[in-house]
C-alpha cells in the first residue's frame, strides 16, 4: 500500500514538473498575449494541484492534507482572477488583434452594443 502511494506521489510530481516545463516552452514560443496566457495558466492550476497531491501522497498525514486541500482551493480562486484581469487589460489596451482569433464574441458584442446605443439616441 505504501509503495503504491509512493509511486503515485512520484507520478504526480513528475506530471506537475512536466507542466512547468511545458509552460516555459509555451511562453517562449507562442506569438501573442492570449496564447501565452493560455500556456502560462496550465501549471498555475493543474500543475500546482498535481504537485500538492504528490506531497499529500508522500507525507500521508491528516492535518497536512487538509492544509494542502486549502492551498489548492486558494490557487483555484486566485489564478483565474489574475489571468482574467491581465488578458482583459490586454484587450482594452489593444494588444489583442481580432484577426488572430477564431472566435471573438467580445468585439462583436461591443460593436452591436454601440450600434444599439446609436439607434436609441436618434
Amino acid at each position, binding site marked *: 500500500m505504501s509503495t503504491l502511494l509512493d509511486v503515485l506521489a512520484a507520478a504526480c510530481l513528475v506530471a506537475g514538473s512536466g507542466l512547468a516545463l511545458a509552460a516555459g516552452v509555451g511562453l517562449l514560443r507562442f506569438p501573442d498575449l492570449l496564447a501565452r496566457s493560455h500556456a502560462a495558466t496550465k*501549471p498555475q492550476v493543474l500543475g500546482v494541484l498535481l504537485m500538492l497531491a504528490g506531497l499529500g501522497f508522500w507525507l500521508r498525514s491528516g492535518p497536512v492534507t487538509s492544509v494542502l486541500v486549502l492551498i489548492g482551493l486558494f490557487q483555484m480562486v486566485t489564478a483565474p482572477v489574475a489571468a482574467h484581469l491581465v488578458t482583459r*487589460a490586454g484587450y482594452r489596451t489593444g494588444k489583442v488583434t481580432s484577426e488572430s482569433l477564431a472566435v471573438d464574441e467580445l468585439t462583436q458584442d461591443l460593436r452591436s452594443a454601440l450600434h444599439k446605443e446609436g439607434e436609441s439616441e436618434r
Partner: protein
Amino acid sequence: MTVVLIFCGVLLVTGAVLVLVRLQRGPTMLDRTIALDAFTAILIGAFVLIAVATRRRDIVPILAVLSLVGFVGSVTIARFAAVEPEGEGRILTREEVAALERERLAAEDAELAASDDEHHGGPAQGEVTG
C-alpha cells in the same frame, strides 16, 4: 525517489529559465506579468519538491502564503496597464542609451545657445541707484 526528485528538479529549473527568458524579452508589460505568474507557480512546485525531499511539514504554510499572495502583483499591474507606444517595453541596449543621451545633451545645448545671454549675469544696465 532521489532519481525522481532530481528529474523533477531538472524539469522545473528548465521551465523556470524559459519563463525568465520571456520575462526579459517582454515585449509588453502584460507578457512579463503572465511570465511572473507562471514563475510563482513554478516556485510553489520547487517548495513542494523541497518538502518531499526533506519530509519537512513546516514548508506547507509557505505554499499557502505563495498561493494567496502570488496574484496581487499581476492584478495591480493589470489595473494600471496603459497603451504603450511601439517598442517602449523593450530594454534598451547600451548604444541606444548613449545615442539618446547625446541627443538630449545636444537639445539642451541648442536651447541654451538660442536663449539670449542678456539676462544671465551680464553687467548691470541702466542707472544704478542707491
